[in-house]
């Protein structure tokens, strides 16, 4: 039993650190640190840099442009990236639809879609949730009816993150309305430029445009865009969800946020002294730091088990709950650090090109917004209550 990294792993960490130091654009890192809005161009710029290095899709098989990294190397890369202020990769293409195409797709589909994900030519979004299908995803109603070489798709998807930037969407659609809930569902790739698709923004409670509604009105989708077998789409969906959950603990992002919290608490004052010297506030930081330490150890245990060939099972559900609660606790403390100055709502100060005076400081305007925005963490990717249902059923067999 050994918790320290091996010399090879340490050398790899240094290589990643050096790469990030040289290549991560300072303006992007600064936006991430201050929780400012990232543009589509920001995301794409960072993606190109990673692609050029061959590190954009480390989890893919080498023949498709991936790496030979094991789970520990991937973990180190994620940690270091988050620590350096690299943006979290928009996962829908590289880490969600791609693994499904690699696992279930035809050779033609792999040849068509994977290179365009690597190059950044395609921006994918996810068409899962519907107004009537949230945690109960299998009750989705969007219909796809076979008509010759096409499916005709009608229905509505929602909570489509960054759908406003996307040119492709992967959808779960109902192809057999008679079948039991999960049976008649198929996994379909749809070009967003197809006539009949409308994207409408949803403003979130923090005033941000991050998610959308997507409407399908007699949308013609070629049959070759079906991934896997018709009516077997749930298999793809489940595979994808397991893939998604392992990354949802967000340890690296929480560590970066904790560092930012300490910087803020050193600048904000109470009773004439930095807030970080306030016993009560400081002990709350200490508490969340210790929880994060435990979650990080749990992640390492899962990662180490995975590198021995184990499959991350329902432990990742427990970790999703713990990790998201920690991140939310940190954003709560950041908001509290501002005192009454958590109240002013100043979206203009959240843009990086803002050149006016800051009401408090460059970090302050986003803190209350981020706190509210991060409430999503315990809702998406399978709500924390759904995760508990999974553990209850799969591990505890209750």
């Amino acid at each position, binding site marked *: *039993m050994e918790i320290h990294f091996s010399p090879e792993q340490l050398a790899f960490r240094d290589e990643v650190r050096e790469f990030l130091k040289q290549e991560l654009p300072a303006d992007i890192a600064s936006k991430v640190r201050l929780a400012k809005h990232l543009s589509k161009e920001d995301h794409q710029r960072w993606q190109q840099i990673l692609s050029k290095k061959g590190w954009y899709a480390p989890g893919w098989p080498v023949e498709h442009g991936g790496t030979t990294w094991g789970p520990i190397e991937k973990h180190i890369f994620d940690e270091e990236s988050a620590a350096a202020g690299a943006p979290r990769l928009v996962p829908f293409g590289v880490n969600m639809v791609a693994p499904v195409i690699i696992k279930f797709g035809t050779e033609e589909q792999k040849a068509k879609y994977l290179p365009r994900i690597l190059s950044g030519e395609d921006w994918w979004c996810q068409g899962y949730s519907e107004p009537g299908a949230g945690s109960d995803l299998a009750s989705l109603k969007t219909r796809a009816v076979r008509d010759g070489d096409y499916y005709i798709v009608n229905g509505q998807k929602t909570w489509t993150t960054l759908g406003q930037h996307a040119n492709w969407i992967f959808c779960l659609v109902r192809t057999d309305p008679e079948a039991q809930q999960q049976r008649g569902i198929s996994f379909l790739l749809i070009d967003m430029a197809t006539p009949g698709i409308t994207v409408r923004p949803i403003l979130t409670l923090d005033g941000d445009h991050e998610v959308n509604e997507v409407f399908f009105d007699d949308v013609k989708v070629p049959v070759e865009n079906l991934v896997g077998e018709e009516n077997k789409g749930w298999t793809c969906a489940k595979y994808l969800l397991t893939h998604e959950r392992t990354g949802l603990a967000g340890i690296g992002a929480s560590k970066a946020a904790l560092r930012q919290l300490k910087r803020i608490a050193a600048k904000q004052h109470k009773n004439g002294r930095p807030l970080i010297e306030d*016993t009560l506030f400081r002990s709350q930081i200490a508490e969340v730091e210790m929880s994060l330490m435990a979650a990080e150890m749990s992640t390492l245990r899962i990662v180490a088990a995975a590198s021995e060939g184990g499959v991350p099972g329902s432990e990742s559900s427990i970790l999703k709950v713990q990790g998201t609660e920690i991140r939310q606790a940190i954003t709560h403390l950041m908001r509290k650090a501002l005192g009454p100055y958590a109240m002013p709502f100043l979206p203009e100060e959240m843009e990086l090109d803002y050149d006016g005076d800051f009401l408090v400081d460059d970090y302050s305007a986003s803190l209350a917004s981020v706190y509210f925005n991060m409430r999503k963490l315990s809702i998406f990717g399978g709500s924390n209550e759904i995760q508990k249902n999974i553990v209850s059923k799969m591990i505890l067999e209750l």
Partner: protein
Amino acid sequence: MDFKLTEEQQMLQETAQRLVRDTYSFEKRQEFSASDAGFSREFWQQLGELGLTAVPFSEELGGFGGSGVETMLIMEQLGSGICLEPYMESVILAGGLISQLGNAAQQEELLGGIATGELQAAVALEEPGSHYNLAHVETTARQNGGDWLISGRKGVVIGGQTAGKILVSARTAGDVRDQQGISLFVIDPNAAGVSRRVYATMDGRKGCELFLDNVKGELLGNAGDAYDAIRYQSGRAIAALCGEAVGAMRTLCDLTLDYLKTRKQFGVPIGKFQVLQHRMVDMVSELERATSMATLAACLADDEDSAERTAKLTAAKFVINKAGRYVAEQAIQLHGGIAMTWEYNGAHYAKRLVMISHQFGDDDHHLEAYADQLSLA
């Protein structure tokens, strides 16, 4: 980085597991607890015969220089049986202090016996006013001719009721809470001037209050310089307690899960109710956190002294105190009335888990300690 056990470690784990399973039924435990010693002398002897009390010590003493990981493996098994023997107190803590501070003659005289189990030692660090601050030492020692004479009161000395030797911290210089000026002495509990008030503890063990009136003690290490060793070794004790807590938590979670599947109300097993399912998941989630931190503590326990080691051991105890209390309270709640009875074994696991938080610092103590050293970067 890996979390696999070596073959030797697996064998050690199995040895401890088999011993606890075969000899420590709940009924037996209650008999041991009610006995004069407060634990099983036979079981203690078996721990010695199987070499388990020698594990952390050198080969000459019959051990194999086992580190925190080996300690954790043993302690987990002792925790899963809520065993009453003062293994941590004698082998880990007293053994560790003597190894760190004792001269060659003292090591030879005392460690051999601790390693075989023939000598059961106890350690007296707390006092009525110390409240987990091990630098708070009012007990004094003064030199009289060639002798050190110790006077004062030490509190809640677990295993002190049967110990062959007791290690006592006493002040030889400085003020009550100074880290400098604390010394460690070995005393014979039957020496003149020692009186003990023996009591049972909430978790079924036994301990004592130690009243010392000019008791002759043998100095361990240099006078006035014992605090660093006490702090370092209490870190090893914390790691051991973390392992024990994980063993006890796991068993208590298993008992509770089993109960949810068998107990019926409203015509169904109560585990069919989602509110209870989620509570059970929360317990398992706490167990998971605790396991991670016990592992971290075990890996660091025998590392060189450093601020990082101290901080992480502090964090481990904090997380485990909270987890242990959560599992204990929720286990009682999910069992309902039956867990309120003396005859139900789960209740005794719950008591031990809560009492672990009263050894070497509760969550407030460790939160404060962690916050004090908080790195600002």
